[in-house]
Structure formats: C-alpha cells, structure tokens
C-alpha cells in the first residue's frame, strides 16, 4: 500500500529542544488543525508528537513556529 499520510506537509519536532522547557504545550494549544499531541511514552515523561493522519491538514498558519519558545518545530512542504 502506498503512503497515505503526510504527502504534502512534513511537521517535525526537535524533542531535545522541546524538553528544555518541559513541554510547554503551546503548539498543541495554538494549532488550529490539531497537528500536535502529547503522549506519555513512559510514565511521567510526556513527549510531544505529530498526529500523522492530520499532517496534511496543516494550513501553514505558522502559529506554532512563532509561538514555540524553543524554535523546536520545522515545517516542510513536500511539493
């Protein structure tokens, strides 16, 4: 089966940068199309990740880029 998510947009998070501010969650708050989610990979160790099935909904509003304290997010157009 062909790849069905993230055909047009790639959102990436640099987790080591993000962790420095203990996951402020600002990106999750500002994104209008729910690209970001927090996961509890290990207990009490929350980590931000990208909801892949929503990646192609990104409208390039740049809110996450502007608000992220750590400049931990990058967004690429895949076309």
């Amino acid at each position, binding site marked *: 089966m062909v790849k069905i998510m993230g*055909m047009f947009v790639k959102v990436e998070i640099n987790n080591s940068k993000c962790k420095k501010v203990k996951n402020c969650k600002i990106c999750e708050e500002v994104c209008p199309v729910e690209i970001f989610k927090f996961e509890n990979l290990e207990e009490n160790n929350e980590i931000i990740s990208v909801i892949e099935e929503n990646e*192609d909904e990104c409208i390039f509003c740049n809110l996450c880029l502007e608000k992220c304290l750590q400049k931990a997010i990058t967004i690429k157009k895949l076309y």
Partner: protein
Amino acid sequence: MKLYEYESKIIFKKEGIPIPESYLASTPDEVEKIVENLKKEVAIKAQILATGRGKAGGISFAKNPKEAKQLARKIFSLKIKGFEVRKVLVEERLFPSAELFLGITYDLSQKTPVVISSSLGGIDINEIAKKYPEKVFTLPVNMVWGIQNYQGKLLAKNMGLKSKDMFKAAGIAVKLFNIFKKYDCDLAEINPLILTQDGKLIAADAHLELEQEALYRHKELEQLEIPIRKDSPRIPTKFEIEAEKIDKIDHRGVAGRVVEFDGNLGLLIGGGGASLTIFDAIRYHGGKPANYCEIGGNPTVKKVKELTKLILKKPGIKGLAVITNVLNNTRVDLVARGVILAMNELDIKPSEYPILFRSAGAYEEDGYRILKKYKIKYMDRSYSIDQAAKAAVEMISNLK
C-alpha cells in the same frame, strides 16, 4: 422546514389566531368517529407538503359520518404531487361570505419582511398577482417594530373589510407577524382567511415555513409535537446520506450537499455559489453528471478527501471534474490535497485517471504546484467555467 397545515394550526392556536375546530385523523374510521362527535358538516383535508391539493381532489366536504368516511377513503388513496396522503385534517365546515388572503415573507430586494393582503383569497397568490395586480396590497414592515396597528388596518382595508371586521383582521395581521418573527419563518400565510356568514374571521388554512438554519433555537417545537426534519422532495439516496455524514465530520467548510444522478462524470464543484452554473454548463455541453455537490467555505482536507473517495467509488464513474469559481476563502491547495489523497487511498494514479481541475484564487500557486507534481491536468483562471465544463465533457467522450 415546511410545516403541515395541522402543525401550522397548532402554532396559530397557541398564538391566538382563530382556527376552525379541527382534528387529525390517520384512517377513514377515525374520520367517521370524529364527525360523529362533532355533529357538524365537515371539511376533510389531505395533509401534504405541497400546494394545489384542492385541485387534485385533496379537499372534500361531507354532511354526515358515513359520507365523511367514504370521502376520506378516497383522499387516503390519492398521491398528490408525489406525496402519499397519510393524514387528514377533519374540520368543521366554514360558510364564507368572503375569502381573503394574508401572507408575510421576505422581499430580498428590499431586504425587509413584506406583508401582503388581498380581497381575493382561496387561489394561489401568484395567480392573483398576475390576473388582478391591483387587488394585491404589499406593505414592507420593519422587523424590529413589527406591524403597527395602523398598518394592520391598512392591510385589512385592502382586503375590503370595514369597521369591526377591519379591527379583527388587523389583530390577526399583528399576530401573524409575531409568529413570523418568533418562529424564524421564511413564509407565514393564511389562504384563505375566511369571513364567515355569521361575521367571524377564521384562518381556514395555515401555511408556515421555518428557516432551516434557525431550527436549532426552536426547542419549543418538540413540545408542540412538531418534529424537526429536513425538507426533501424525495427520500435521500444512500450516496446522499453518506455525503451528508462526510459534511458533518467537521464544522469547517462545506463538502457535502450532494444530489445523486446516474451519469458517468463525477463532480466536485463549488465556489461562491457556482455549483449550479457549473452543473448547468456540464449539461449544456452534453455531459452526464454522476452527482451534484457543493464545496465552499474552506472545508478541511479530510472532508474533501472523503467526498472525493465517495464520488470515485460510485459505480459507473468514468472521470472526475474538479471545477470551481475563483475562490476567495476555500483554498485551492487544500482541495488539491484532498483530491489526491483520496486517489491515493483508492490506489488510483492521478496521472492516469481522467481528471480535470479548474480552480483559482486562494493559494492557487501552491495548488498548481501540487497538481503539477502529481501530473494532473489543470486550468487556471484564464479558462472560463464554460471552457472547463466543455473540456471535462470531452475528456469523458474521448475515453475508449
């Protein structure tokens, strides 16, 4: 939402507009019983959501229970303008000395409600306006102030009423306007408003149409036993129901409102109300649409994707035309993404599938870049909707 006569009359009764004594019945036996109890001459009226039932035999008068039952049987067997008669309203028969007209609707050019009165009731108001324009009195009314007493009297005077009758009719006009406003009506009509031989003014018929988009704020309808529903000239198809579900995935934008047809060209059309124009253009050039639809208001990629999938999976589809007007809020790139994602999920290669894309406006550069990457033939704003429609039809007819 169009209301049945009996539903409109529930509201009339609640709001103080006089109506005849009336009962709802679902079988000829029930009709017979009602007439036995009433001990009066009655009118039996088919309850359907279409006008013109009188001419089609949907109204009969009966003198006694037996006759009423017989006539009811006939009415229940009718199919009027495609509607089966499932309920009838049994009412005491009124003996008019005059049949009048009173109605309220919106005048879209004046952007205000207008109240219309006439001394010629009982016939279609459009017919009256055509044949006797001088008999139709139209009065624009301020939405906030409503009908003032003097305006009510003016309306009544133009129905040919005098003295006491004029005051009574003015009162009914005021109440009708209150209903119009309170229930968010698009139309409130009494035709005919009957002046009986013993001097009473009674709404013999009642016709209310409530604005679909405002229904959510009318919880009181449930208490009045008026179920909220969608007006539809027919039962929606499975395809249409699926499309509606897709539109409800998300509140953002529209990617639904689909009507199914039996053609071979799938349509994803819209943009500032252009859907109908595009649909007509396709038909004009001899195309056979598989569906009508509307996309607009910047729907999410997911909604466009799901709708495209639904259309592409429809049996008999040979190609897809994505045609929109120049868009100002729906984004060309998001539509393109949705369409391509759908094809991808269905294992369809965009470069090999008969697809034509004509769109322009918001984020068109991004949109065109995407389409180019996936080798989809597209037209920009230098091509008219008509040219695009023609090309789409040719695309299908050139298929081997």
